[in-house]
């Protein structure tokens, strides 16, 4: 098989993986700080995708331009969810938190089903069928735009946690919960902010992913699972790990599809997950827990 075929597939895998990485980044941020696993993560992305579809079909607004407003809406949703509901379960056993978020996920899926029905919906932008040709390389325009936007959003998020005072306070909460309380930080508010930021990540990822993947209410659970595979591979709680995991999963699936049977490509991403769990249980960039 010619080399350019491999190159095309790898580039496509990297671009898709970056968007997957941004989605998983939200999950990693939430777990890293609050220590709550968001089992409604994929469903929240489906909500963002539907918002993008409605904005496009009703007002002709491009999902890429609407990425920030959609992220803000999801931020508000995430903030309220944490502040009004999940904070009440913070000190309860993990299985209670698990059931709570699974319930939220089921409510979201069924609400979407009632509002939008089961049919796949998509946005048909003017560049939906565009591609760039660079020598033998053909790059899908929508994936290229989405990949670049995912890198930009991730960079902004890293900068926020590194330099912004609130970002530093959130990191302090994650590093030492008791210490944060002692120095007078409002931990519950910071938790709500963190969940909001995680939800905003998934909102931005949804606005990008809808450019090349049709949305159905049933999409949510599949993407929740994908986000888990990515963050466990990259390292649960590690932000760079989420991006790395996304790219690795994207490229693994693409290359495995090319070299072996495409219908078995998911098998290879799960095989990668098993290998990581066997030889580096904390994930590729995660920190070992003692």
């Amino acid at each position, binding site marked *: 098989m010619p080399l350019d*075929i491999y190159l*095309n597939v790898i580039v496509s895998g990297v671009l*898709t993986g970056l968007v997957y990485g941004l989605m998983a980044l939200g999950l990693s941020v939430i777990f890293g700080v609050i220590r709550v696993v968001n089992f409604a993560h994929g469903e929240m992305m489906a909500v963002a995708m539907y918002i993008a579809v409605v904005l496009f079909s009703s007002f002709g607004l491009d999902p890429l331009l609407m990425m920030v407003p959609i992220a803000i809406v999801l931020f508000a949703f995430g903030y309220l969810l944490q502040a009004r509901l999940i904070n009440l379960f913070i000190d309860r056993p993990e299985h209670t938190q698990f059931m709570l978020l699974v319930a939220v996920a089921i409510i979201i899926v069924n609400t979407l089903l009632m509002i939008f029905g089961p*049919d796949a919906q998509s946005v048909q932008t003017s560049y939906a069928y565009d591609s760039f040709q660079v020598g033998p390389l053909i790059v*899908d325009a929508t994936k290229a735009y989405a990949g670049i936007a995912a890198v930009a959003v991730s960079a902004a998020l890293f900068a926020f946690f590194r330099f912004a005072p609130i970002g530093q306070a959130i990191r302090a909460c994650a590093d030492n919960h008791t210490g944060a309380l002692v120095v007078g930080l409002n931990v519950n508010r910071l938790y709500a902010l963190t969940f909001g930021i995680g939800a905003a990540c998934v909102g931005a990822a949804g606005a990008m992913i809808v450019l090349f993947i049709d949305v*159905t209410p049933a999409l949510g659970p599949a993407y929740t699972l994908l986000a888990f595979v990515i963050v466990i591979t990259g390292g649960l709680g590690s932000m760079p790990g989420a991006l790395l995991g996304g790219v690795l999963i994207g490229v693994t699936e693409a290359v495995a*599809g*090319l070299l072996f049977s*495409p*219908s078995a490509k998911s098998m290879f991403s799960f095989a990668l997950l098993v290998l990581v769990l066997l030889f580096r249980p904390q994930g590729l960039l995660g920190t070992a827990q003692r």
Partner: protein
Amino acid sequence: MSSIHIRINRRRFLQGASAAVVSAGSLGRAFAQGAALKVGVLLPRSGYQAGIGQDCQRGVDLATGLLKELGYPNLQIVNGDTESNVDTARAQAEKLIGEGAQLLVGAFDSGQSSAIAQVAEQKGVPFVINIAAAPPITEQGYKFVFRNFPTAPMILGDAFANQKEIFEAAGTAPKTAVMMHANDTFGTAMQQGIGAVMPKFNMPYKIVETIAYDPTARDLSVEVTKAKAAGAELLVMVSRLNDAILITRELVKQRWTPQGIFSMGPGWYEDQYLKTLGKLADGPISFAPWYDPNKKVAKMLEAALAKKYPGINLNTNHVYTFEALLVAADAYKRTGSNDPKTLAEAIRTTNITDNVSPGPGISFNAKGQNDKLKDSAFQNRGGKCVVVAPKEAANAKAEFPMKPYNQRA
């Protein structure tokens, strides 16, 4: 405890008595006409086949009025959703029978239909398959399962004959083909069928690569890259609706227009495909069970569809779902019985000549299969499908090779 006192005066008594007389009259008529046959219709109304399942539902919606117009008795339709899932199909079949369904119809998909067939046979309730092509369903010796839809070998036999006719008319033929197929029951059965039937037809092309893919996948870019890399002239497809749309998008993005896209199944002719892709939908030729536009009932069905669902074209889903209900109504009309065993015996002796699908009509062989059905080749052209083969049923000439995607406005 409080009590309710009702004062009965002469006027109230007369009103009550009149109502009782009217009710008794209605009840009498209802018994005289007999209770409607309770038919459980199982379709994938949600899940990845939801689009096609809902299209089949249009055939159900049209059947009620049209069957009455044709002089058939009423059917009481009870809907079930298989959720595009084999296990759910089985559970839903059991549920509908438990709720009193006296006959089942469905289920578009071979895997789901196989599961329902097992339940129907076990419970002794007739099951009329609307759409499902995997041959084993009617090879099990079932006594309660009937299929008015061609099996994969029947579809393939007609398909290869029609393809040769198209190549001959075009004066050109591809030498190589790549086949992409869904890895579900239907897709796998068709892929195996093509391998078995194709050598008998001495086709001008050979299949150089076969690519199986997951029809529920949300991204088929790698699959299309692999197909393009095979360097074949023809793309042979066995797919569903959503994957047909995804593959077309990838063909455009990856700048590959094969000489032709030959679909051996659903997806490429569906209204949703035509509407979603606009001009990019033109070109693929489907080799599938279709309808005979010259038959009287076909014209009636087409008119009823246009009235109830303006802008929707009549297609396989409507036709064969309607005909499955036609078989049920016909058996019920002939027997006047709701007894499942009596209905099954009546279905076995079906002989409907006033129908919609091509061929002499609807009848079943000893295995419960209508083996007299014929298939057509039809091409997407300007948002509609035109029949391009066989010659006797064609209303247009095939455009082969198809127009490249990058030359369309």
